[in-house]
């Protein structure tokens, strides 16, 4: 608890507030004292003025009588009237040789206590002196009261600060403990655990949300890794078993053409296994999203042209046709190597499944402002029921079990498309299959001239 950051902060703030209350009290005290002193002085001055008026109107006897009267009134000020040579005429202040103007006299009270009296001396006509003064103990009383009240307020501030800080520390502590608990649970292997969030949407909630997004990402990566290990187990074991069998069967065979053929066959099997393995790793890498750093502006049409140029001769040799259609230039943001590989997979897939006299077209187009790359064949197509599963790893149509291919081609297409934020859709090309990769609309797409279709 004492090591809680919020409690320490609360204590720090309490100290700061206490200091602020102290400063406030001091300022209030000074201001109040100043105002009260000025008021007291003004009262003394106005009494002096009133008695000086009395002297002018009623003469010395009149004022002496007034002084004696006031002196007897309880709670009134103190007075004195002196002759020009300082002898007392009336009042308890007389005969104490006070200076002219303001001064302070120390006098003994009836009970023997000493009191300080602030006195103002006025010189009247013929040199008579009038003294008016008073004890400023009322000001001290107010001072004392203020000090006591402010001390009380300070205690209140400290109490509120400490209690509030404790509450704050406990609240924050509970929420931080929830995050810590979730993290600990994840460390212990429960990857499905998430950090709870309150509904306030404050910074801790935002932290929790970010934390949860990070966990989702990690879970996706873990899932991808798990999938790869499953796939490896599932589809590498079969060819490895075959390879092992082949080697075992030929172990005792004498050197000669048959043995050479067996070794060559084994090497071919091994190459196929390695190719599958490489493809799996590549897909995992792409799904991990690590390749997005290689994104740059690329031209889909140029890539399509390169791929069509590369594959057209071998298609022709097999009695098939491979052609390029659509716009001459189609810019997207992407990884050229992965897009090339994706298109190669689609083209090979089309050529392989569409049969000996197939006509495969690669088309670049803009549809509804989005760049679209499609590969259309005129083969037997894919039944509706099978289309969805086409992108699963190793999924191959029953009908094509005998044709070569690891079944990973379309998984890789899906992974590359996903990395690029593109959607892959399968359509019936009546006859045949159309695979369409629709890229997200980029600002660059709009700048492109949507020229008429050109055929390569």
């Amino acid at each position: 608890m004492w090591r809680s950051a919020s409690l320490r902060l609360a204590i720090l703030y309490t100290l700061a507030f206490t200091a602020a209350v102290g400063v406030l009290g001091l300022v209030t005290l000074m201001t109040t004292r100043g105002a009260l002193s000025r008021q007291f002085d003004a009262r003394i001055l106005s009494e002096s003025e009133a008695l000086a008026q009395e002297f002018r109107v009623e003469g010395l006897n009149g004022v002496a009588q007034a002084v004696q009267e006031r002196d007897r009134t309880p709670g009134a000020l103190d007075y004195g009237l002196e002759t020009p040579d300082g002898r007392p005429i009336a009042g308890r202040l007389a005969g104490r040789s006070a200076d002219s103007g303001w001064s302070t006299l120390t006098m003994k009270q009836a009970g023997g206590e000493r009191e300080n009296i602030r006195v103002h001396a006025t010189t009247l006509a013929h040199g008579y002196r009038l003294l008016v003064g008073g004890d400023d103990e009322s000001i001290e009383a107010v001072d004392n009261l203020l000090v006591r009240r402010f001390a009380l307020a300070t205690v209140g501030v400290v109490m509120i600060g400490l209690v509030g800080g404790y509450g704050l520390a406990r609240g924050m502590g509970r929420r931080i403990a929830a995050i810590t608990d979730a993290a600990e649970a994840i460390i212990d292997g429960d990857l499905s655990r998430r950090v709870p969030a309150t509904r306030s949407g404050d910074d801790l909630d935002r932290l929790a949300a970010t934390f949860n997004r990070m966990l989702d990402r990690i879970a996706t990566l873990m899932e991808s890794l798990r999938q790869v290990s499953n796939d490896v187990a599932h589809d590498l074991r079969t060819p490895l078993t075959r390879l092992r069998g082949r080697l075992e069967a030929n172990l005792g065979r004498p050197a000669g053409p048959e043995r050479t053929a067996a070794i060559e066959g084994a090497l071919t099997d091994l190459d196929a296994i390695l190719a599958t393995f490489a493809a799996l790793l590549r897909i995992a890498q792409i799904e991990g999203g690590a390749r997005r750093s290689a994104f740059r502006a690329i031209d889909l049409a140029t890539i399509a042209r390169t791929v069509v140029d590369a594959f057209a001769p071998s298609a022709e040799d097999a009695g098939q046709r491979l052609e390029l259609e659509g716009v001459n230039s189609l810019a997207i943001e992407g990884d050229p190597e992965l897009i090339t590989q994706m298109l190669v997979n689609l083209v090979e897939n089309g050529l392989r499944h569409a049969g000996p006299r197939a006509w495969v077209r690669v088309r670049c187009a803009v549809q509804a402002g989005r760049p679209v790359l499609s590969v259309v064949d005129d083969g037997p197509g894919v039944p509706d029921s099978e289309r969805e599963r086409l992108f699963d790893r190793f999924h191959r149509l029953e009908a094509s079990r005998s044709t070569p291919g690891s079944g990973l081609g379309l998984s890789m297409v899906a992974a590359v498309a996903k990395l690029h934020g593109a959607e892959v859709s399968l359509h019936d090309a009546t006859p045949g299959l159309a695979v369409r990769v629709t890229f997200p609309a980029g600002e660059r797409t709009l700048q492109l001239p949507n020229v008429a279709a050109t055929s390569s």
Partner: protein
Amino acid sequence: MKLLLVEDDRETAAYVKRALTEAGHAVDHASDGRDGLLLAAGETYDVMVLDRMLPRVDGLAILRTIRASGVKTPVLLLTALGGIDDRVEGLEAGGDDYLVKPFAFAELLARVNALARRPPPQDVQTTLRVADLEMNLLRRTVTRGGKRIELQPREFQLLEYLMRHAGKLVTRTMLLEAVWDFHFDPKTNIVESHVSRLRAKVDRNQAKELIHTLRGAGYSLREPD
């Protein structure tokens, strides 16, 4: 040729060294990064073959160090890492070629030979000649026995690569990388189709065939013995 092989796996190293020696090369072998760096920096080689992941000093570090000290010897990197980024990283560190494990020995030998025969960069060639086949690199024309041969741009690139490596084995993957920039192996043998078209243009009705297929290994452009 004098070659340096830096490879930590004893068995792989022994097998590669034996095969390279049988092919007529003198091979120095280092089994960790520190020894490799000492040899690479101290001796003169025609080609260096560096494994990427080595104990003590890794292959890329050796490469960066010798490149920084001005050694221009061609370097072939071997790696068990198959990622695209790994290849890019290797080439950026100053590698000249990159081969992913496991590899066919013929592939390694062909690439080592191709690297060694690289003409120095300052030597600008404008014509390539093999027997009566002539390629003008400036005018982009090809003649055989003085007669013009019309080639598609890709066919021109393909022939240029074969001519630059005349007399040497050129593998399918080398051609895929050099001509099409494909750094993966398509299932279709596209190289075969392109080479057969090129062969039809270059060798048809000629007494001597120049483009030879080495079954299961690759191609070679040379004057027949």
